[in-house]
């Protein structure tokens, strides 16, 4: 399986990253890409930008552990995870997850699983710039609930058809 994990300050090209995962291959039948973008508001209040702080070595290790877990649960042929840090303006990309498999079910499920875990387990913290000042974003209970749904016994892995 092709795995790419990158933490970077710079923006990235979503289409180019997805194309890279399937280049020269004819066995991949499904590619799912999830792109997280910076919105111009937080809880209804406008923001000028957000800044992502991270714990570099642990973030990379934690993402790698979850990619491994996704690979154990679904028949994946490729995974790319790119997460930015630093200052990010509204409309810019923050995170990209690309999953490739022979069929769509595994690709959809693995992308969803990886995003739920990135939100709640990968050591990144968002701070937003509001008119009133800089504020750390609170963790959301809905994100914890989304991650918890994967802690049920995993589905039996079936060979790629």
């Amino acid at each position, binding site marked *: 399986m092709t795995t790419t994990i990158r933490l970077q300050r710079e923006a990235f090209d979503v289409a180019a990253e997805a194309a890279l995962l399937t280049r020269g291959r004819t066995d991949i039948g499904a590619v799912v890409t999830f792109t*997280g973008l910076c919105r111009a508001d937080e809880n209804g209040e406008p923001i000028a930008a957000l800044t*992502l*702080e*991270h*714990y570099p*070595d*642990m*973030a990379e*290790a*934690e993402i790698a552990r979850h990619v491994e877990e996704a690979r154990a649960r679904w028949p994946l042929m490729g995974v790319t995870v790119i*997460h930015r840090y630093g200052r990010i303006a509204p409309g810019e990309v*923050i*995170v990209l997850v690309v999953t490739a498999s022979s069929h769509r079910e595994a690709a959809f499920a693995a992308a969803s699983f990886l*995003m739920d875990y*990135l*939100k*709640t*387990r*990968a*050591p*990144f*913290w*968002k*701070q937003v710039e509001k008119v009133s000042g800089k504020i*750390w*974003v*609170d*963790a*959301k209970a809905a*994100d914890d609930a989304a991650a918890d749904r994967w802690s049920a016994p995993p589905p039996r892995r079936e060979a790629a058809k």
Partner: protein
Amino acid sequence: MKLLYFAWVRERIGKAEEEIDPPAGVATVGELVAWLTKRGEGYAYAFENPQVIRTAIDRNHVRADTRIDGAHEIAFFPPMTGG
């Protein structure tokens, strides 16, 4: 051992990292937090709700009852908000 602080935990304590040598009675993450809390106002503020603080030992998530002996790097941070 080396301690790392992130996000508002870092801001409240006023530093990103430090080397510490806790006394022998400090055996678990929870006991380390209690010991740190007594080191000053910034620490007390950072750890005022210890149940919300997340901890990693050598880059792995751990719980408050995890033992700290043998740890090289212990990180304290708020619940994560990436993605």
